[in-house]
């Protein structure tokens, strides 16, 4: 068991900047998810922790030990690769005990641990098979078992579920969560799937262009994205953004969108209590300083209003705080429907009940839940406090 400190990591491939000054503190036993779009440096970061990538700069400390110069085998880590990388010429059993053999563990102890891991992962009946005779999900479990039996301080996983079909992915996701609860190894988990990140992570570090944009609990990442990128990346469909005009006059804050004044709640996260809570959050370190423009003094001017699709109400008649919109399409999406409407020239997605009937080009009014509105700087996209 060990905590991890990544200190000012930097990695370039020729002219490509893969990681740009990345710092992160991961607690002992924590399940940390690295989330971000393709090519943002997730795999590179994970491989750097594993010792498979030489860094240009920076230090990695695991359990108080500086491992920056140590080879992968001496870092107390184990890794599950995206391709699983199970050895095709070895049986499942030999795969699982490979790490134990390398450590010169007695044969009976090897057998005991392999049996234990195989049972935990429900592959005990497959021990004599070869990887070619396994399904993708079974192969993935072998890869996890192989990493698990060496009892690593740190478990690293690179998109372990991305090769599985949707149903199996759901199942394995729950399994991984259960496994982490039982083993409590510090886990760094890479994914580009935000649903996976939200359901698995104790904390999520959102990466973009080799930098951490926000690192927070799933709830806070979802509710209070640090900037437009995070809001637009997380959520399905993601957060809506509308440009508006902030009005600070007559004490009540409001944003003018399409000529309509949308009031902001007094307990809106932009108020001072919300701000202080946020900065003191453990995940806020590292980005709080850079992303939030000081103790928030909202000034009048152009802003970006961010709101999630589920916090918008559709009303059929004009109301004072309802923004007029025009229906574009209505798509059924299982438990609800997804409405795409147009406000001026901007598209807005709204989740609505399945029994709502709307016609294309129909006029509706959108009411935003005031406490759920997140204001962003119109030019930088940073959340305003």
């Amino acid at each position, binding site marked *: 068991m060990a905590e991890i400190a990544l200190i000012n990591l930097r990695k370039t491939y020729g002219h490509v900047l893969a990681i740009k000054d990345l710092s992160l503190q991961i607690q002992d036993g924590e399940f940390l998810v690295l989330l971000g779009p393709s090519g943002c440096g997730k795999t590179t970061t994970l491989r750097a922790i594993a010792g498979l990538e030489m860094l240009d700069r920076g230090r990695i400390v695991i359990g108080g030990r500086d491992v920056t110069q140590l080879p992968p085998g001496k870092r107390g880590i184990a890794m599950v690769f995206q391709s699983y*990388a199970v050895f095709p010429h070895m049986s499942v059993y030999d795969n699982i005990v490979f790490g134990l053999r390398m450590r010169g563990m007695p044969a009976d102890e090897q057998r005991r641990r392999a049996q234990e891991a195989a049972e935990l992962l429900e592959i005990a009946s497959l021990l004599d098979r070869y990887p070619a005779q396994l399904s993708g999900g079974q192969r993935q479990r072998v890869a996890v078992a192989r990493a698990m039996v060496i009892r690593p301080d740190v478990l690293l996983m690179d998109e372990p579920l991305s090769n599985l079909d949707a149903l199996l992915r759901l199942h394995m996701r729950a399994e991984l969560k259960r496994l982490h609860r039982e083993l409590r190894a510090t886990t760094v988990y890479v994914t580009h799937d935000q649903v996976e990140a939200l359901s698995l992570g104790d904390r999520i570090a959102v990466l973009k262009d080799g930098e951490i944009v926000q690192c927070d609990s799933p709830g806070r990442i979802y509710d209070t994205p640090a900037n437009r990128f995070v809001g637009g990346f997380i959520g399905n469909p993601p957060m809506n953004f509308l440009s508006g005009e902030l009005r600070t006059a007559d004490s009540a804050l409001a944003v003018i969108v399409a000529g309509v004044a949308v009031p902001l709640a007094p307990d809106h996260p932009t108020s001072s209590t919300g701000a202080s809570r946020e900065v003191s959050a453990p995940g806020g370190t590292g980005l709080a300083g850079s992303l939030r423009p000081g103790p928030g003094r909202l000034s009048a001017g152009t802003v970006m209003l961010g709101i999630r699709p589920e916090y918008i109400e559709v009303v059929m008649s004009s109301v004072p705080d309802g923004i007029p919109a025009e229906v574009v399409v209505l798509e059924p999406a299982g438990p609800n429907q997804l409405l795409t409407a147009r406000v001026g020239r901007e598209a807005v997605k709204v989740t609505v009940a399945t029994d709502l009937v709307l016609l294309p080009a129909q006029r509706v009014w959108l009411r935003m839940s005031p406490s759920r509105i997140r204001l962003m700087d119109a030019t930088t996209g940073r959340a305003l406090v």
Partner: protein
Amino acid sequence: MRVRLVGIYGAALVIGTWVAAPLLLIALAAFTPRNILYEWPRPLWPRAFSLDTMLFFLRSTGVWASTLNSVVVAGLTIGLAFLIAAPTGYALARYRFRGKGAVQLSILVVKMFPATVLSIPLAVAFIRWGLYDTLIGVAIVHTALSIPFVTVIVTSVFVGISYELEEAAMTLGSNRLRAFLRVTLPMAVPGLAAAAIFTFVLSWNEVFAATILTLDHRTLPALIVDSVISAGAPLHFRFAGGFFMVMPAVVIIFLIRRYLLTLWGVTVR
């Protein structure tokens, strides 16, 4: 579509005949009784078969000694070629390094030198170094000839084995060397074996360097060429010798044909 198919099959037939017909004729002649061989007009399909010709060849002086020489030279060539080409292939497959393109190009450049041009200087140099008329001398030249080929195959073998497997072994506690020995090497063995066999065939068939660089220690092809040219060996002897020479290559290629094809990205059932 149909026209194309006919074209492809037609070309295959022509090429196949071009390669197979001489082999077939040599094989037939090697097993034809001597008197029939010299008959005129000679029937395409001999009326009788006999082992006389082959036995005559095999009992001739020097045949077994030079067969042994050929095997020794081929063995040495395989050893030397792998010593140089295997690490090169591994490096080309696994690492990006300064001068990688130059290495790859120089491998091909070696193929551009006509051996004929090099033969006299080579013979002189070998005499000076005491390598003339030694098996190791021939093996060195064969090594030079086979290195480009072995390097290309070995590179493609290692490219085909995911480096992630080796990395996985490293994260599980083995060092670089052990990861290679325990993971990559076992998986590379069939491909490396194919490369070795091909090197064997190349050395076994090589005649030019072997003829120029040896005198008493002839390899089999050198012996046959020698006896044909200078001693004016009889026709049946040539056929028997040709057949004896060509058989190992044909058998080996037949056995590993499937593997060779997959090496170059084509799969056959």
